[in-house]
């Protein structure tokens, strides 16, 4: 039986240990059976359609293996949810500086496998900057344990970075070790009017000055901001500040001198993460910060009046625009195609029919050779389109 995305529960494998994952993958390799690897499947419609006989769900491979607050490191099994991690670390006034899209029932394994991040990447970077080590079973049939539990490590070739963002195409990540941060004493979120394009062009360098130290700095389109209750329909810049009392007071005063802002509930960040919950298409478009406003304007013009519901948010320091389409997306397909002014276009989810036209970044050239070296049978998360 070959399946695409949706599977019956009977075909879902639910390992509870690394050895079980290993054994299940060895079985798949021995039987030449394509296998779909996932976390809790909360992002079921993300990524390209997969051709598989079975789904290997890591949701039951959960729990914290080691947590040493004094080291600010934590090791957790792949199926541990982001909520569980948040709860465990909060008890020690620590947190993981990762706020990927989706709700918090998503797993850390899937977050790392998809290299997902959110607005906190402004201060803390993306998963490649936060993962210290991991264990994984490769499509070659090995259980590998690269990296470690220390915060600095250059021993050996970097399989940790290779697996991070590999979308399960090299095998299944079974556990990860992550760098943590102390929770700031004060965590303040401000909404600042972004103004028009001209104003935004002026605002970006001001917000990137070295006199400001922000945890997040995210532009949000006016319609979405209104729906989230933080604007009357104007675009906003959401700013997150974290630090001691003097820090927050001083930074707020500095920001108020730029443009008076309103304090919002920190829950707004979870709301932004959940914007894609019923999305039909989500695409990240990366480019230079210096071209961010013009790219935003071009996208707006292209998407305007197409009849679909579109939300957009963008990192003002990283130049990444995330476009989230809800409902019927077909009318926007042309506007969301790669363009010369979008140097990188990363689809997170698309209507199934669109994937056929998408380049498979895990095939061809060096990437294809990597894939073949770690999953010679092309069994793990095999695309039903490109690799069929």
């Amino acid at each position, binding site marked *: 039986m070959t399946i695409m995305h949706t599977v019956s529960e009977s075909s879902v494998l639910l390992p509870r240990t690394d050895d079980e994952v290993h054994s299940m993958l*060895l079985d798949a390799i*021995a039987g030449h059976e394509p296998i779909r690897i996932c976390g809790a499947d909360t992002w079921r419609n993300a990524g390209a359609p997969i051709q598989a006989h079975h789904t290997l769900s890591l949701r039951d491979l959960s729990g914290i293996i080691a947590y*040493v607050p*004094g*080291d*600010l*490191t934590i090791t957790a099994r792949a199926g541990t949810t982001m909520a569980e991690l948040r709860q465990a670390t909060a008890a020690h006034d620590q947190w993981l500086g990762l706020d990927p899209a989706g709700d918090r029932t998503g797993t850390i394994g899937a977050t790392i496998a998809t*290299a997902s991040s959110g607005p906190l990447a402004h201060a803390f*970077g*993306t998963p*490649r900057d936060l993962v210290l080590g991991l264990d994984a079973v490769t499509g070659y*049939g*090995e259980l590998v*344990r690269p990296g*470690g539990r*220390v*915060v*600095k*490590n*250059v*021993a*050996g*070739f*970097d*399989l*940790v*970075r*290779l697996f991070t*963002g590999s979308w399960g195409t090299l095998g299944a990540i079974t556990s990860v070790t992550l760098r943590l*941060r*102390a*929770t700031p004493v004060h965590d303040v979120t401000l909404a600042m009017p972004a103004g028009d394009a001209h104003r935004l062009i002026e605002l970006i*360098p001001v917000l990137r*000055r*070295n006199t*400001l130290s922000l945890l997040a700095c995210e532009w949000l389109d006016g319609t979405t901001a209104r729906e989230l209750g933080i604007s009357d329909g104007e675009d906003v810049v959401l700013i997150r500040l974290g630090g001691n*009392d*003097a*820090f*927050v*007071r*001083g*930074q707020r005063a*500095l920001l108020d001198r730029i443009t008076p802002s309103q304090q919002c509930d920190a829950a707004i960040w979870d709301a932004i993460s959940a914007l894609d919950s019923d999305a039909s298409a989500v695409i*990240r478009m*990366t480019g*230079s*910060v*210096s071209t961010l406003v013009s790219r935003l304007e071009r996208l707006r013009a292209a998407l305007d009046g197409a009849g679909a519901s579109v939300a957009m948010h963008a990192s003002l320091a*990283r*130049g*990444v625009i995330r476009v989230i389409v809800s409902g019927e997306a077909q009318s926007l397909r042309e506007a969301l195609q790669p363009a010369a002014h979008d140097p*990188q*276009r*990363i689809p997170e989810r698309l209507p199934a029919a669109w994937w056929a036209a998408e380049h498979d*970044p895990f095939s061809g050239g*060096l*990437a294809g050779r*990597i894939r073949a*070296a770690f999953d010679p049978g092309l069994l793990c998360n095999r695309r039903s389109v490109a690799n069929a």
Partner: protein
Amino acid sequence: MQSIGGTLAAIVGERRVLQRGSALVAYTSDGLPGYSQTPSLAVFPGTRQELVDVVRALAAAQMPFVPRGAGTGLSGGALADGTVLVGLNRLTRIIEVDAVNRIATVEPGVVNTSLQKAAAVHGLHYAPDPSSQSACTIGGNVAENAGGPHCLKYGVTLNHTVACTVILPDGEIVTLGSRHGETAGYDLLGAFVGSEGCFGIALDCTVRLLPDPPRVRTLLADFMSLHEAALATSAIIASGILPAALEMMDGAAVRLVESSLYAAGYPADCDAVLLVDLDGVEDGLEHDVSAVEAICRAHGAREVRIATNVTERTMLWQGRKKAFGAMGRVASHLVLQDAVVPRTQLPDVLQQITAIGARHGVAVWNIFHAGDGNLHPSVSYDGSNAEEAHRVHLCMTEIMQACILAGGTITGEHGVGLDKIDYMPSLFDGDTLAAMCRLRDVFDPGHRANRGKVVPIHSCREWHQSPAGRAS
């Protein structure tokens, strides 16, 4: 048929190919004097095209080669044993500093401080600051995933490299990463950074620049107990304050520096000093300075000196930055290790290092990045004395094993090279080493780039059959 020397000379000119033994002496070692290997010849391309042509000529001749930046590495990684050495130190062009997007693109031979100077004009800097930054090159930094004192807060080279154009050993040119940040697909750039010259040679590197912090505060705390200084380090990290740098020197190292021309005014009767940089925006910084001072005092600091101006700050750092130079004056040979342990393990591991040194009659100096748990136990010794050299070797081996047992690793910033290759099987199991071998095979199926480094060759040979095949 033309010899490889003749072929390379036709590309770069006769003067840029060294073949005589006397001319090659300078390239027989790197920053770690314990190893010596002589290349068959050394070639020094002066342009990107010459470098491309050289690598392709070596590929056509199926010749192994070793890339080398400034040769300041500390793991024997840039040594060529009877093979071709490709020197990159003439490729010194800063191609672009894009101050608006805060990135710079440079050729691999650009010296770290040259990039710093070019960035400083724009109020920016490149964060990785290895001790050898006045000589080491960005290409070498990328190859080794170099660190430095200020990587505690800002991260290592991996975190600051956004793209590289790379010529693979077979002559293919690929772009890894993107100057615009995120890319879809495998993090091939992440795999390349720190690959120690085994995956190819960077033709250019694009790195991230950071705005200079508006305020920096430097503290020097001295302790009458190394153990208490280590406990203070663990407490600072556990408090959640993230210093830009948190360095430690033990009493012996302090006295060595203070008796040298690099004397920085450290108290020579102490057992350890902590040197702490706190930086960032003005707001709230004094709160962190006070908190760090209080933690140090609570752990027995005798005095906590806080620099009040740039001159004082520079003076406090001088002792730390010149410590290895002071060490080099003591004896003909210096062994400098590079292990990392969990920060909570620092007090115990430092006690073990002291005990191991005493057991072997070896004086071990500790000058290191305490905030990262990145130890650099060091010994000056007379390499011509076989008995002493043997004791030093045993001592260092035991120290490395102690660090591994404490949950640590064998290198935090120097790389594996030749020096630590024998420790790799202690750290990684056979499957993990075999997977590393396969990753190298993707970039360099002929094993011609820096062969014999990083992963023991037997790890590759022993695992011809896949685990799936073994299971069946």
